[in-house]
């Protein structure tokens, strides 16, 4: 069926709403994004399916949903009884399934893994009252993890079934597309996006409306829009979740962008490491085509636009827009000099507009609620919300979407640690290999483009990696350089050779072989590479080095002067020893040591031969009695 009128859309919305919020059926949905699957969500789903069949529960709908963002509590399962709130259960295992189904059959609903409930939900493009009930279960926004959040991009994540276009339409989806095609000119759309103040979420923060305007101005028979779904930043995974949880919002955004800029073909460039997102996109594109929302004569108009999915092949630099274009063209992904910008000369030499996944996700909302509404979120210079992935040494790992301008402290300590772990956090790293490490005493910094730049970091795609006292900052700087060297395309000498040289110096520092002069050289090199490299990779690769030097100089000093690694990470500066009094002689460590460095009789204290030990740390990890100690004492130098 092809949709051509608002009435058609409303009819499908009614159909979708019956699935999303059935009034005569129980709906169980299992969190089925990669994060949920990898901790057993697929087993939970399978078990539900078998048991529902066994129990002949006909009045029960089982479906998949995306991820609501609280990844640390996965697998999550939503239970929706007719007229009642959605109850979200956490850390569900296959063993819980029988009990859950029993409770549903008996209508007792005392789910012991109940985590929170959802009675009302603001899908932003619509609001839904799901139901009431369950006095004893906290509301979702009473949970600290959710309280400070504002869901715009994640408006449907974890609630709707991402594989069902009807449910997306039920929550107000494709209304913005309808609106622009039936009642707005391309200029009016671009005006609205400009008014919203939306800035690109792929890192650089360039105003989206302006970018669209450039692409629209160009005269050409063919123009392209591209969704940058490469997400190469290690530690950042919000784009993956957005694609897996709500692919249609991205597609709708792209169609609107194509209509505004005059593009006829769209490409989603997505990394090969994300197979589930690829699969969901392909299905979503097909479904949109069946409804006449994509393809020829969209919504009965004269506008034609198609989208294809292209997979990357594991090269971080391909996230850079000119490299990405080369990659789509079947070349190796090497960035080139700008100008010409992609808007002038992009894919196959034609005008091309590239935006990040999350940038596209905001577009339907801006059209639905208006640019003014959007611009009131966040700060004046950085309007809107941003999804951050909060990972590393933090209690509540997951995705948090907050208004820009929220402080690091609020995200890491309030949302992430919920009061525990306090004081143990040493730093956060934002912006991946292009970003910097921010020390705890600067945690009152508001997160937006300008404030992060002021402390030497960047927002990047939104990864926040939390580090505690067990993380060595010199090692961290070295780690990121390692990454950038590996991923450098090798075109510029400064990036190719400079980074290698910096890495060698850092390596010497971690081995206790460097001098203070080396640190000066390191700093100089870092500055040189920053200004002389061609693309963003080389230009920003020094950031982790420069920020750790600035905020954690003491750690560098410890390595150089006292040959000691406070965090006990740097292999050459630590030793493993067994505490004689604490060792039970269980022999486990000796059995697991790969180089037979551990000797001792069963039942008697064991001992590590220091000249044999390769410091792999296995004994430290396997000893159940904590008898193996990791030491880093000052060697040489004055104390």
């Amino acid at each position, binding site marked *: 069926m092809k949709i051509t009128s608002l009435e058609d859309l409303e009819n499908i919305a009614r159909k979708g709403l019956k699935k999303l919020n059935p009034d005569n059926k129980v709906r169980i949905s299992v969190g089925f994004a*990669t994060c949920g699957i990898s901790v057993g969500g697929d087993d939970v789903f399978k078990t539900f399916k078998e048991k529902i069949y066994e129990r002949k529960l006909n009045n029960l709908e089982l479906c998949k949903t995306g991820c609501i963002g609280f990844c640390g509590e996965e697998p999550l399962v939503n239970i929706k009884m007719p007229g009642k709130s959605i109850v979200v259960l956490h850390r569900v295992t296959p063993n819980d399934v029988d009990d859950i189904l029993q409770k549903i059959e008996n209508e007792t609903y005392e789910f012991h893994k109940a985590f929170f409930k959802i009675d009302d939900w603001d899908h932003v493009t619509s609001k839904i009252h799901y139901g009431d009930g369950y006095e004893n279960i906290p509301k979702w926004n009473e949970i600290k993890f959710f309280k400070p959040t504002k869901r715009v991009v994640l408006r449907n994540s974890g609630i709707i079934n991402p594989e069902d276009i009807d449910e997306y339409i039920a929550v107000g989806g494709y209304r913005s597309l309808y609106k622009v095609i039936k009642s707005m000119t391309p200029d009016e759309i671009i005006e609205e996006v400009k008014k919203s103040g939306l800035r690109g979420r792929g890192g650089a923060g360039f105003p989206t409306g302006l970018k669209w305007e450039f692409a629209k101005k160009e005269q050409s028979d063919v123009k392209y829009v591209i969704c940058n779904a490469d997400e190469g930043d290690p*530690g950042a995974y919000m784009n993956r979740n957005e694609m897996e949880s709500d692919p249609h919002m991205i597609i709708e955004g792209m169609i609107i962008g194509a209509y505004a800029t005059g593009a006829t073909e769209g490409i989603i460039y997505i990394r090969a490491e994300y197979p589930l997102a690829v699969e969901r996109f392909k299905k979503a594109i097909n479904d949109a085509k069946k409804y006449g929302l994509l393809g020829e004569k969209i919504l009965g108009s004269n506008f034609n636009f198609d989208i294809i999915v292209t997979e990357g092949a594991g090269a971080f630099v391909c996230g850079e827009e000119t490299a990405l274009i080369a990659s789509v063209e079947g070349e190796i992904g090497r960035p080139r000099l700008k100008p010409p910008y992609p808007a002038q000369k992009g894919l196959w030499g034609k005008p091309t507009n590239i935006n990040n996944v999350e940038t596209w996700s905001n577009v339907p909302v801006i059209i639905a609620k208006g640019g003014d509404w959007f611009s009131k979120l966040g700060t004046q210079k950085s309007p809107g919300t941003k999804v951050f992935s909060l990972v590393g040494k933090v209690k509540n790992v997951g995705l948090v979407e907050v208004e820009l301008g929220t402080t690091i402290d609020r995200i890491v300590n309030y949302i992430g640690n919920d009061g525990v772990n306090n004081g143990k956090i040493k730093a956060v790293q934002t912006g991946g290999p292009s970003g910097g490490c921010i020390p705890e005493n600067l945690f009152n910094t508001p997160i937006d483009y300008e404030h992060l730049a002021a402390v030497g970091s960047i927002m990047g795609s939104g990864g926040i990696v939390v580090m505690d006292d067990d993380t060595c900052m010199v090692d961290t700087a070295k780690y990121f350089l390692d990454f950038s060297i590996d991923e450098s395309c090798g075109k510029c000498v400064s990036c190719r050779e400079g980074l290698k040289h910096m890495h060698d110096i850092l390596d010497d520092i971690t081995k206790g072989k460097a001098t203070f002069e080396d640190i000066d050289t390191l700093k100089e090199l870092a500055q040189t590479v920053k200004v002389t490299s061609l693309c963003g990779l080389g230009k920003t690769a020094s950031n982790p080095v420069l920020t750790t030097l600035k905020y954690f100089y003491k750690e560098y000093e410890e390595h150089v002067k006292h040959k000691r690694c406070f965090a006990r990470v740097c292999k050459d500066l630590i030793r493993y020893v067994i505490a004689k009094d604490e060792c039970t002689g269980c022999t486990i460590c000796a059995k697991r040591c790969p180089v037979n460095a551990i000797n001792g009789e069963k039942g008697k204290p064991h001992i590590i031969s220091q000249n044999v030990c390769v410091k792999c740390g296995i004994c430290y990890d396997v000893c159940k009695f904590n008898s193996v100690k990791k030491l880093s004492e000052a060697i040489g130098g004055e104390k």
Partner: protein
Amino acid sequence: MDAKTIDEIIEKYKNPSGMVLGILEEIQNINKYLSKDALIYVSKKINVPFSQLYSVATFYSFFNLNPVGEHIISVCTGTACHVKGAAEILKSLEYLLGITKEESTEDSKFFLTTHDGCFSLNAARCFGCCSMAPVIKVDDKMYGYVTIQNLPKILKEYGWSKK
């Protein structure tokens, strides 16, 4: 891989955008690696110079130019996993499988295969499962919250036994 299968794959890519990477990826998904013959065949069929295909295959870390083991183990070495001890996991796997880094392949990608051809081990950059760090992937299955202690258990699922 026979010519017919490759032809079928090529047939799917009518749009020039993403054609080269798409074809090579599909071949590798079936065959696990890109043989020289397959590259030569594709080069002729789609009219792209062999040298370009070869440089693409070596540039992107996704592609293997040599045969790989029956099961492929990828250890995430992304930031979140690094902070949570990915290096120790990798090291442990090297020891458990009896292979070390020195044996890496000629195109200098870190990719090791056991002598019996049962396992290949490589390092990957983030599967987007950072919340479950440290993460490893065996074939298509992802394992979150991996510890050195439970590595042997995971390997046993794939027929590994301690020598």
